């Protein structure tokens, strides 16, 4: 564990230093990557630990963003109230829609998450009375936490950093808990888990609820980062990006997922001058990584992460 802890602390310090000296542009990218890492870690409960892949994380991320945006623009409540609402909303919708499907085999579950993603997107786009439909939701005020208004890239970066670190630490505790153990057992062998006394369906539903909750929290930050939400930000493409980062990050490795988010998040920005080629490279990265190291990034690196 020594090595893991040292690397962890070092990276957090590095991220703080980055916050102090980096230009606003780098901060904007870093903030987006940190926010996306929360949604990817949430998805990791399903892909990395429950052995299920979901293509609805983008829509649940959107549910969180809309919950935060609508709450602050339609009611007088302070922004921070939006965080628990976003988490609960995304978690409840994710669980309600996902649980009936999670009983199905892996392949059928993926299929149903595509349906869920598209249905949620269509509702965001066409339920105009609630979501503002194609106009999106504008005029989201800057996030203010106890009087401190986070309206500059640097300040918001700090909020995103705290969010991402908290998300990672909480996720580690979830995986270390008995639920995490049961989840891994279910992913290895559902039947044996049942006859070993594990409530299989409840474990899967909890994984769904957690991944939805994390997506909601990330959506909340997204809403206050862009201060404008629009249905086209939460399409199937976003779910593909999140799934890629989670799968690329690897099996049973939260650290791998964070690393993948940084690499792929950064790549989509760094490759920007290449215009269209950027997306071709992105697709290629995806295919090649699945062809040559399906167990994900850290499975390739020699160091053994003792858990």
């Amino acid at each position, binding site marked *: 564990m020594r090595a893991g802890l040292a690397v962890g602390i070092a990276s957090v310090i590095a991220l703080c230093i980055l916050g102090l000296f980096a230009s606003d542009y780098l901060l904007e990218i870093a903030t987006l990557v940190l926010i996306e890492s929360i949604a990817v870690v949430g998805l990791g409960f399903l*892909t990395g630990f429950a*052995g299920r*892949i979901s293509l609805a994380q983008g829509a649940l991320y959107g549910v969180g963003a809309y919950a935060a945006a609508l709450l602050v623009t339609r009611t007088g409540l302070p922004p921070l109230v939006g965080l628990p609402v976003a988490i609960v909303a995304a978690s409840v919708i994710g669980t309600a*829609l996902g649980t*009936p*499907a999670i009983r*199905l*085999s*892996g*392949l*059928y579950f*993926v*299929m*149903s998450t*595509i*349906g*869920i993603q*598209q*249905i949620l997107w*269509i*509702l965001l*786009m*066409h339920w105009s009375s609630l979501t503002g439909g194609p106009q999106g939701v504008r005029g989201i005020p800057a996030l203010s936490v106890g009087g401190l208004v986070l309206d500059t890239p640097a300040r918001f970066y700090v909020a995103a950093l705290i969010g991402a670190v908290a998300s990672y630490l909480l996720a580690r505790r979830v995986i270390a808990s008995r639920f995490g153990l049961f989840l891994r057992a279910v992913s290895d062998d559902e*039947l044996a888990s049942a006859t070993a006394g594990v409530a299989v369906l409840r474990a899967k539903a909890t994984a769904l609820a957690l991944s939805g909750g994390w997506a909601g929290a990330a959506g909340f930050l997204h809403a206050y980062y862009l201060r404008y939400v629009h249905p086209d930000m939460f399409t*199937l493409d976003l779910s*593909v990006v999140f*799934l*890629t980062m989670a*799968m690329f990050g690897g099996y049973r490795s939260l650290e791998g997922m964070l690393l993948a988010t940084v690499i792929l998040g950064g790549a989509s920005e760094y490759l920007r001058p290449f215009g*269209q*080629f950027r*997306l*071709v490279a*992105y*697709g*290629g*990265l*995806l*295919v090649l990584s*699945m*062809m*040559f190291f*399906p167990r994900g990034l850290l499975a390739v690196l020699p160091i053994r992460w003792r858990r």
Partner: protein
Amino acid sequence: MLAQLLVGGLGTGCIYALVGLGFTLVYRTMRMVNFAQGQVFMAGTFLGLFGAQQFGLPALPLLLLVAVISFAVGMLLERVVFRRLYASHEVFVVGAIGLGVMIENGFRIVYPEPLPFPKIFGAGVYHLHGAVFQKTYLWILIVTLVLVAALHVMFAYTRTGRALRAVASDGEIAATMGVNVQRAIGATFGLSFAIAAVAGVLIGPLYFVSPDLGDMVGLKAFSAAVLGGINSVVGTILGGLALGLMEALAAFYISTDYKDLLAFAILVLMLLVRPQGLLGRVVPVKV
């Protein structure tokens, strides 16, 4: 007016059926779903456009040329890419999506703008008591029927057809009976690419050709395959036609906004109620 909707619905239904067949063929053989199928359909349209403009090929030879080329590409991609993705469902699904992203954006570089497709299936329209529709629709119906019949004959009576069916039921057993399983799987991918590409050419004259042509059609065809029964060829075709008609009617009588919602609501409902689809067989899961 109803006739107008039915013809339109039948036309899109045929396209969903053909693209859906691509999902079914691969699923029956490998229990995997190739999510790049929508992009293969789009690539077929561009291939048809290229053939029609550069070489001025008339309809039939163009369709055959596109079918042959896509079959070869399908076998090649199976050998180079898909064969390394059989590790698990997850790896295959994500790998296929990656391939789709590559294909779509590769074409977006070469063809950034939507292009009109020459009316190779005949310009002008037919009138059928009140309904007005392009000649292309007739071709779509005919080619779909021909393809379905050809598939049925091939599977029932030809050696390769029986080999493909053997591999579909159980790869190991087929291998012991001397079937070259790798080649059969390659042929299955080839076939699914060819059918989807032909559907792409057929749709050309109706819509503009653009790299995002395949996205929605791919997802809808997928829902149709699940509706009909993803492991049954007949089921998928009926599922495609049913979805096409339902969508056309829903768009007119309910609302165009929620037209797409219908396809995905059906997908989710079918998966919960009858994952094997209306006509699909229950695939027993060995305990």
